[in-house]
């Protein structure tokens, strides 16, 4: 095959223009075939997101105040993302997107440390602000707004 290719290219250098034209034409056609196969292939594989119904979630109810004594936390679902609602030791409520800013693991509340902790690589975050305090996490956790209704229901909304 390489020998044949050598000979063809040697001939091509001194070949008449018509022959060279047809050789280029062949290359274009072959490239065209690859194009019309690879392009649909890419679009096919990239269609995944179209199959997932994404309803924009703006607010969710996460239980009631009386279910959450101080220094406890509750995991919840906010659209497609995991969330963590924390009632700190001082009684204040805080909600965060529980996706670690390091490599997307889901974080948890450690009541013994009163910190948010990621088990994957040991990052710690502040309970009140979500600020990254130690470990490899580069940014604070994304924080959400918490509201409590008169009946004591806890709502989490996008800040």
């Amino acid at each position, binding site marked *: *095959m*390489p*020998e044949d290719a*050598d000979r063809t290219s040697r001939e091509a250098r001194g070949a008449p223009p018509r022959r060279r034209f047809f050789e280029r034409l062949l290359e274009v056609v072959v490239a065209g075939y690859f194009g019309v196969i690879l392009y649909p292939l890419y679009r*096919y*594989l*990239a*269609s995944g997101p*179209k199959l997932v119904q994404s309803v924009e979630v703006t607010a969710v109810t996460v239980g009631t105040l009386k279910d959450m004594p101080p220094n406890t936390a509750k995991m919840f679902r906010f659209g497609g993302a995991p969330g963590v609602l924390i009632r700190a030791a001082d009684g204040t409520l805080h909600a965060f997107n529980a996706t670690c800013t390091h490599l997307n693991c889901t974080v948890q509340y450690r009541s013994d440390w009163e910190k948010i902790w990621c088990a994957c690589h040991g990052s710690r975050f502040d309970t009140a602000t979500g600020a990254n305090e130690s470990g490899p996490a580069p940014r604070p956790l994304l924080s959400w707004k918490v509201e409590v209704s008169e009946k004591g229901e806890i709502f989490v909304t996008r800040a």
Partner: protein
Amino acid sequence: MKSTNGLGAWLEERVRWSQLTELGKKKEVPQHGHTLWYYFGGISLYLFLIQLVTGILLLVYYSPTVDGAHSSILDIISKVEFGWLVRSVHVWAANLMVLAVLIHMFSAYFMKAYRRPRELTWLSGMALLGLVMAFGFSGYLLPWDELAYFATQVGLGVMESVPLLGGILASLLRGGPQVGELTLQRFFALHVVVLPLIFMGALGFHLFLIQLHGNAAPPSFYRQPAAQRRTIPFFPNFFYNDLLVWLICLNLLSFLAALYPWQVGPQADPLQPAPAGIHPEWYFMAPFALLKVLPNLGPLSSEHAGILLFSLGGLLWALVPFWDQETADGRRGRLATYAGLLVLVALVGLTVFGYVH
């Protein structure tokens, strides 16, 4: 062959790839009036490769559950970009592959390509044909539409009426008391893992034997004086012809798949009656039509008679290398040729009858 350019020489030193082309150059392809038929083996192989690629692509979105199968197929053909094309190519190529395999088989039969030393090439080819049929039967259920459901019910029913092992095999395939979730999962596992693995092994053996013995030519070719027998090297001459034929196949396949996209029926519902005019895929039509026309023969029910006829016929067909050996005077065995013609006419006739009746 020595490569002079850098990368070629580097690879040559490490993987000795020129041995591959040397192997191909040693093989000569006979040239005669029936050379055309040699291409159908290559076409079958090519369509198998298409099935491999499009099958993997479908696997990306398909969901093998009773609740999810039909809707995932609908998603593939309506929401996934070019999904309709991928599925259509997979179904069209499947049908064309069965056709190419059948043409390949009959051409090998009539050229008497099964004679010594190619008996195992023929037998491995018969195994490949069986696997292709199994691919067709198992793949047909996966969209979980009305026709698929009843085709599987009927197919397993026929299997069940085979004495001794039929019932065991049918219930193993069905998985549960009814065609349902368990059946779908089994057929899925068969279609995408078990059959491809066995098929590739059998195909490797088949191709190895063809490389070993070269292409068989019809007896008339060997009756010519040696000096008059024309051959061309497999590589590059025949190989380039093969590529050209594959290109024609690709174009034909794209044309069919794009202009006649394969439809999917309504979701299977075990509580609904079978629709009128229901029939199997064309490659299962001949035995289906035979079962319809055969009367009860004495103690044999028509089903048993049909099954007996097809199994005995299939067995004789598979064993042709052993009952149509080359005779001392070199004359062709007419009996095998006439039997082959009879089988061909019967299969085509029954298939046509099945469609018009």
